[in-house]
């Protein structure tokens, strides 16, 4: 039988506010355990939540960017369950009337085709703390620093049909939330976590199959692995005539497999009800309109602008605009270097992104800043160095040997442009290679083009690569007659 994969995603995005959603605690990553856990975060008796305005603003910003309906009356509810990282025994979340209602998002697949994915809703909630499983005499340690961090949970329609589509969707959200400045999108630090709902159905069947939910997957690579693994597992089960159990699963990245979550085996009854400590959030048309009007340039708009303003190919524009940080880097290189945008685009997409990829780091942590790369390109444009030498300089910059100018100076890499000096070299090479000169003079136009390369090579070697290639060519043509 031929099967169709159906995927829906719930993405939890940590919002980049200063303080928590219901308390004035900081949310800095990596703080000492429980040093960012206030009375409210600890669920002390008698404490009360007060809603952070910026969390609302960031949620609405996201909603307007995906053309979603904003619920102008939005309500917080309690989701009741016991877990040691959940101090109050309930999580403040939203059920009916989430802040962001239906919207949609377009994703671009590798073949360039575009697919629209529905967003069912996006609601605000508080994050839980962390259980640390290192052994404390057979006990588990609880750190509540993260408890109360604002999360936007973005729930998609079951619109994706492959791992590729799911990854493209997550990447689009990842890029969008950074563009909107509502999250740092740092997946390694847990700023974006996915719950993946997967089910299979025979091709052509309308009705959905039974789904499983794999919780808390936090990298693009793992998302892909989970989907591929779960699809195979479910097909195997179905083809063996077994039923799929609706269950919550966990991904073990070490074993690269998912397994049912033991603690959630029982069907949970969360007993949602409106939180009596919080009143309905009412947002006005004006408030939403102000947010809509101050939306920054979004990825699609940026790709279009890059093609128009910088005359870039669509592919290059897409690579550069995929992340806000890369796009900003690129534009800084263009302005500081004054170089042709095409040159800047080539350097950023191939040299820089290549080096970052090889080093396994991202552009925020690039050892070469956009300004410094801009200076380097400036030296290519003003003929101080050749493109080839520039690569040597870039390598030195990457290794922290200083600015482009410092390195050019220190390594004496400046291009030779003194025509007298170049002429002397040309004369010397011609004098030292009479046989090749003879061969050259006897050859026809076509062959001459090849043979001239030998002389250029000899001259460049003698100049240690510094002679200006245009000048060398010009002089050779004059002299070899």
């Amino acid at each position, binding site marked *: 039988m031929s099967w169709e994969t159906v995927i829906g995603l719930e993405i939890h995005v940590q919002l980049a506010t200063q303080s928590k959603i219901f308390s004035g605690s900081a949310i800095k990553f990596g703080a000492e355990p429980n040093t960012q856990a206030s009375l409210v975060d600890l669920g002390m008796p008698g404490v009360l939540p007060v809603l952070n305005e910026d969390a609302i603003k960031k949620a609405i910003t996201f909603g307007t960017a995906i053309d979603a309906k904003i619920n102008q009356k939005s309500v917080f509810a309690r989701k009741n369950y*016991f877990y040691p990282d959940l101090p109050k025994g309930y999580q403040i979340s939203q059920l009916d009337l989430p802040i962001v209602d239906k919207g949609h998002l377009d994703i671009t697949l590798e073949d360039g085709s575009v697919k629209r994915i529905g967003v069912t809703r996006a609601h605000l909630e508080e994050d839980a703390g962390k259980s640390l499983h290192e052994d404390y005499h057979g006990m588990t340690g609880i750190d509540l620093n993260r408890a109360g961090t604002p999360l936007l949970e973005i729930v998609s329609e079951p619109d994706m049909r492959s791992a590729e589509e799911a990854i493209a969707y997550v990447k689009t959200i990842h890029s969008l939330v950074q563009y909107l400045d509502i999250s740092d999108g740092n997946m390694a630090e847990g700023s974006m976590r996915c719950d993946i709902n997967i089910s299979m159905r025979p091709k052509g069947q309308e009705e959905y199959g039974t789904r499983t939910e794999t919780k808390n997957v936090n990298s693009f690579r793992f998302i892909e692995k989970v989907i591929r693994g779960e699809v195979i597992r479910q097909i195997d089960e179905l083809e063996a005539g077994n039923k799929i159990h609706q269950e919550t699963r966990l991904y073990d990245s070490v074993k690269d497999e998912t397994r049912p979550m033991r603690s959630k085996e029982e069907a949970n009854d969360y007993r949602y009800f409106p939180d009596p400590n919080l009143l309905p959030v009412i947002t006005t048309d004006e408030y939403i309109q102000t947010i809509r009007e101050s939306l920054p340039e979004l990825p699609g708009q940026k790709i279009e602008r890059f093609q128009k303003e910088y005359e870039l190919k669509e592919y290059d524009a897409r690579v550069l605009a995929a992340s806000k940080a890369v796009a900003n880097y690129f534009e800084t290189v263009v302005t500081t270097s004054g170089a042709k945008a095409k040159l800047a685009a080539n350097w950023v997409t191939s040299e820089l992104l290549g080096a970052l990829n090889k080093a396994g780091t991202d552009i925020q942590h690039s050892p070469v800043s956009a300004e410094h790369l801009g200076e380097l390109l400036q030296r290519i444009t003003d003929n101080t160095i050749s493109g080839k030498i520039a690569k040597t300089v870039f390598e030195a910059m990457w290794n922290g040997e200083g600015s482009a100018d410092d390195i050019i100076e220190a390594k004496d890499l400046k291009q030779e442009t003194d025509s007298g000096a170049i002429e002397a070299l040309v004369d010397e090479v011609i004098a030292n290679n009479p046989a090749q000169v003879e061969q050259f003079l006897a050859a026809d136009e076509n062959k001459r083009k090849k043979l001239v390369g030998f002389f250029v090579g000899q001259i460049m070697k003698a100049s240690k690569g510094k002679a200006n290639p245009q000048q060398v060519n010009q002089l050779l043509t004059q002299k070899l007659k």
Partner: protein
Amino acid sequence: MALDKSEVKDIAHLARIAIDEDKIPEYASSLSSILDLVEQLQSADTDNIEPMAHPLDATQRLREDAVTESNHREEYQSIAPATEDGLYLVPKVID
């Protein structure tokens, strides 16, 4: 509305309250009599009535996004049953 023993057990588990087996009938009977009292609600005509969650028609006030809390870990953990290295300790958690 009468609750049977297994319903009492299920709710007790949901609420994480241990009830001795021999006390279950007593709970079943007192909870059932409370539910009988509550059952009188069904006589109210609530068609087209909006549920009321709050006694006043007020709306949520929003707090400015600013860090106003500082670290009080020692103080807060001085009343905790078990801590180590700044962590609250609980019996081993199995995901």
